[in-house]
């Protein structure tokens, strides 16, 4: 009797789960949506508002007990302000870059060019600039998750806020349970199904002879599988300017996470480029390569720039092949800025279709900090966040102009992407996440300073 009860209860629990999963699969293959995810997001925003009010009231009470702030408040009415990078501690007066040297922000560049005699006080510019960068610099902050202006009820971003009010703690607790015990298993099931379906379908498609039918079938299957996977992350993606979607050539986008591929692939089919991996990722790579041409490089081949360009060019010249998806930054950045684009894809000489991706970090940070987390942990992070909400802008295609070299072209495309996505356009190399600065980069600031000096 106990056993019978147990079985009926279990099936009752499973029935809704199974039916929802089937519903999701059907919707994914048809490319339609019920709008449930959007309503869920709106509900979340209301909950965040409530949390924000509670926290600001708590902070005000805390500050009233702090006497020394009053004097400072009278003299300096600026409070911690929010800009694209989160909350600042200082306002930088002097900037330094390896292409422009040291520049004082408030003074126009003309005065920077005025010649003057050396003065002992000149050292103060270098000193102040240096200490400013120690407090706040433009580069290292891009390699860690962006700070939120207000709490989003995830303990990973809290400042201990989940202890300040009972109601807030309860909401946080409920959210925790919902995310880990309802959403996560559901998403995991979808992820497993999506990946499995992809591997199985591509195996079948692989037997077909190359031709129009194979291409169309691959497109259908690919879109369906990636739509399932995007639902596995609860991704709510808004696509803008779909008339600019790539049909061939090379598509470039800013890179925040491996999820970028899923986000882009549920609307258009791309040929992926990357290093051949082992394990599950390798299985996926080989599976996808059966249905359509992707480019997977061996570790050794990556070093050979000519080989890389040759293979890219061969792929792009074949009009039957899919547009290539490349992330020229070469590494994941935290979605507040766009860093230096490597010129490789811009040397191929084909049309470039830029795409800007901007994630709404209130619902969960999509940034993969590869120095702190492995891929699996990152994916689990995504699947236990509230949702992945992002905007994707398809920009008009761009080509290299006469008299422009690959680097200038790359920078031009980068500025366009940064502008559209509302990201800071930086010239710094994303590889600085791990690599050291080259000594030769000191030369530009030295050169600019010596130009200023009047020498007898």
């Amino acid at each position, binding site marked *: 009797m106990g056993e019978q009860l147990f079985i009926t209860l279990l099936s009752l629990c499973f029935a809704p789960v199974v039916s929802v999963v089937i519903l999701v699969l059907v919707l994914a293959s048809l490319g339609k949506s019920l709008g449930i995810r959007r309503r869920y997001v709106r509900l979340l925003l209301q909950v965040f508002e409530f949390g924000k009010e509670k926290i600001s009231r708590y902070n005000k009470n805390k500050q009233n007990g702090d006497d020394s702030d009053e004097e400072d408040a009278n003299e300096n009415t*600026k409070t911690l302000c929010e800009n694209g990078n989160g909350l600042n501690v200082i*306002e930088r007066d002097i900037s330094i870059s390896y292409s422009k040297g040291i520049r004082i922000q408030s003074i126009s560049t003309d005065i920077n060019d005025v010649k003057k005699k050396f003065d002992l006080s000149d*050292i103060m510019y270098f000193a102040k600039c240096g200490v400013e960068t120690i*407090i706040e610099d433009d580069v290292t902050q891009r390699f860690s998750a962006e700070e939120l202006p207000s709490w989003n009820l995830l303990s990973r971003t809290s400042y201990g806020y989940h202890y300040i009010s009972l109601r807030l703690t309860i909401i946080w607790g409920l959210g925790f349970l919902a995310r880990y015990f309802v959403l996560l298993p559901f998403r995991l099931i979808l992820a497993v199904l999506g990946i499995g379906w992809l591997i199985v379908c591509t195996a079948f498609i692989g037997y077909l002879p190359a031709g129009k039918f194979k291409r169309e079938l691959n497109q259908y299957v690919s879109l369906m599988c990636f739509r399932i996977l995007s639902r596995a992350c609860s991704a709510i993606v808004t696509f803008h300017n779909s008339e600019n979607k790539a049909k061939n050539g090379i598509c470039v986008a800013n890179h925040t996470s491996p999820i970028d591929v899923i986000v882009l692939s549920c609307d258009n089919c791309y040929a992926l480029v990357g290093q051949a991996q082992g394990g599950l990722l390798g299985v996926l790579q080989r599976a996808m390569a059966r249905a359509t041409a992707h480019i997977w490089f061996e570790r050794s081949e990556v070093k050979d720039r000519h080989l890389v360009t040759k293979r890219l060019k061969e792929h792009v010249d074949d009009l039957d092949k899919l547009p290539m998806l490349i992330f020229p930054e070469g590494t994941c950045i935290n979605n507040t800025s766009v860093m230096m684009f490597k010129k490789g894809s811009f040397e191929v000489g084909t049309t470039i279709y830029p795409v800007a991706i901007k994630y709404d970090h209130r619902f969960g940070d999509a940034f993969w900090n590869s120095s702190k987390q492995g891929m699996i942990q990152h994916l689990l992070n995504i699947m236990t966040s509230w949702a992945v909400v992002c905007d994707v802008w398809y920009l008009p295609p761009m080509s290299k102009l006469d008299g422009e070299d690959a680097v200038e072209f790359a920078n031009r495309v980068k500025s366009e992407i940064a502008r559209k996505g509302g990201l800071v356009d930086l010239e710094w190399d994303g590889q600085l996440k791990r690599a050291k600065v080259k000594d030769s980069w*000191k030369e530009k600031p030295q050169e600019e300073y010596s130009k200023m000096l009047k020498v007898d």
Partner: protein
Amino acid sequence: MGARSSMQLQEEEINEIQRETGFSQSQIVRLYSRFTSLDKSNNGFLSREDFLRIPELAINPLGDRIVHAFFQESNDETVNFKQFMRVLARFRPIKTNQDKNKMNTREDKLRFAFKMYDLDGDDKISKDELLAVLHMMVGANISEEQLGSIADRTITEVDYNKDNQISFEEFIKAMEKVDVEQKMSIRFLN
């Protein structure tokens, strides 16, 4: 970033730093967050590599001298948070209320600038030291002779006791007309 770090910084430590440096509580918490994000090995102090990992500091021609200022404060191979704050305190803007100026008086700021030149720490800037610093600032763009004459002229202009070196008092006098407040203060937000 250092979301959990504010919990690791004790209330008493914050108060102590506030008394010593004059920074506000929120500024200290924010700067602690920055300190921990620079501390990649997570052991509570910074090494030279931690500082020079900041690209904009690494390309500063005087980056090494600036980092050296922190290690002079600690007199050690590592810099802890209190020592870190003491150096940053020099760059606080000068307040009108005299009592509020803890480590950021005009003389404190000038001493920081002086120590950037004083390579061997003997409280005097010799011609060789001045030449070495000039070299760091301009790289290979100006010839040795020209740098030499710049150094000579500079020392002659400020050297009152004619010992061919610049002492701290002479340095202060040379900086009389300089707006040290503006040049050596960073705009901290509340």
